[in-house]
């Protein structure tokens, strides 16, 4: 039985209902919320500010330090609080993605702290986190060469789809699930973050790239509208 209709009835290239707004954390220099359906991420940016201890400073550039964390009750089986290898890896790929679009040589010896918290998880948490973090950076007034937009492209059985859910990640019929989170720059469409888990024929990867480009264009639109002050909430 092949995957001909998505479990939640969306079209193959359709995103879940999006929620996006900025300025949700009063103390932060910049902050934002981004949600794909039931996956909700918030991000706060503090900086640029001097980096302590001093020996961690880079003399010619600033660094972006990211901390991704999930609320223990964001998932069905309680996740033990504290960093895990997974959360450290996600923190790293997020920091790398954001570092690609910020000219860090403008802030030598400083750090920009990006803190991401997942309030509710239904797959694509890292993508929601990156979208929120990028918006928070822009909201903080950090000069960015381009915006970045992130989405999980899936290959569920043999169908390429945009913005996969937890239920789709657990779909093991046919060729099973493949999760491909992409983060692309807004104008030049370059890859600043990419991971993959599952099974996709080498000759089909280009289809996933096309799906990602289209999905990221849609996400970019939400991010820019939110940065202009709109409070977007497509959830019923």
């Amino acid at each position: 039985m092949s995957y001909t209709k998505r479990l939640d009835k969306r079209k193959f290239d359709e995103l879940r209902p999006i929620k996006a707004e900025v300025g949700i954390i009063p103390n932060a220099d910049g902050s934002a919320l981004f949600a794909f359906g039931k996956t909700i991420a918030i991000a706060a940016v503090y900086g640029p500010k001097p980096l302590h201890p001093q020996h961690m400073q880079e003399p010619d550039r600033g660094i972006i330090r990211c901390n991704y964390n999930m609320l223990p009750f964001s998932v069905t089986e309680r996740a033990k609080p504290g960093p895990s290898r997974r959360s450290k890896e996600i923190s790293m790929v997020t920091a790398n993605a954001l570092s690609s679009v910020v000219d860090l040589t403008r802030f030598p010896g400083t750090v920009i702290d990006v803190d991401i918290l997942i309030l509710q998880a239904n797959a694509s948490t890292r993508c929601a986190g990156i979208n929120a973090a990028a918006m928070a950076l822009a909201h903080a007034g950090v000069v960015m060469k381009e915006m970045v937009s992130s989405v999980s492209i899936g290959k569920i059985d043999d169908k390429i789809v945009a913005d996969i859910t937890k239920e789709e990640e657990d779909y093991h019929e046919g060729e099973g699930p493949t999760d491909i989170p992409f983060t692309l720059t807004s104008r030049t469409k370059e890859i600043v973050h990419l991971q993959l888990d599952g099974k996709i024929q080498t000759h089909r990867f280009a289809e996933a790239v096309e799906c990602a480009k289209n999905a990221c264009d849609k996400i970019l639109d939400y991010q820019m509208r939110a940065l202009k002050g709109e409070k977007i909430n497509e959830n019923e």
Partner: protein
Amino acid sequence: MQLPNINKKRIITLLKEGKRLDQRKPYDIRDITIETGVSINAEGTSRVKIGKSEVIVGVKMDVQTPYTDHEDEGTMVTSMEFSPVAGERYEAGPPQMDSIEIARVVDRGIRESGFIDWKKLCIKSGEKVWSILIDIYCINDDGNILDASAIGAVAALKVAKFPVYNEETGKVKYGEFTENSLPLTEHLPITMSFYKIGDKLLFDPTRDEEDASEARITLSVSLFKKEKAINSMQKGGITSIKLNEMDEIIKESEKLYDILLPKIEKQIKAIKK
């Protein structure tokens, strides 16, 4: 001690002409040697050298309760460390981000490929399953430790034997081995990392080349229904990868898979255990 900026400039200038410091072409691989059975108390071990880079990998096994959502499947945990012996830059202490990433990327390449038949590791559904513990140690770092680690993990899994297990007491008799190999399939994963220096791509970097690079794409490929399929992928580094560079990486990975798979299989087969 080399000054990193001068080295980086030399490397970039040479690459513009398609050349490298050691005369290799951009996608040439250094010599790979694989030994197994290098540490006898483990269920399986390997020692892999790529050029002067060297890793030792051990497989240990244990009996555990399965995960609640995979009650009839075995489990696997992969860890990696750079021993301080591996280079001046490595200090004793908990695994840093570079080790954590290597462990997780190697793990996913194996896990997603279907190389291990998880269901055959089940002893009693919902109660007891075999757990595979892979520990990777780098003992000399001259670049490309990620790919060396992946080769080492696959080789160690291939030669590993189940320890003796007492079904009644539920205890493993460590140090006593059976003749039974792990339930492995033909989907042997090959992990390949491509590094970007300036605007050029290369494969199998030395330490200096890796230090000069700003971005990396690692992908793990295995055969699925006779076609090459990507099982895992991870981008590293703080600069971007263009979409056409991604195309080139996928194409080169298909060619390199055809070169590396027979090389690795031949070396492992030649080993008597």
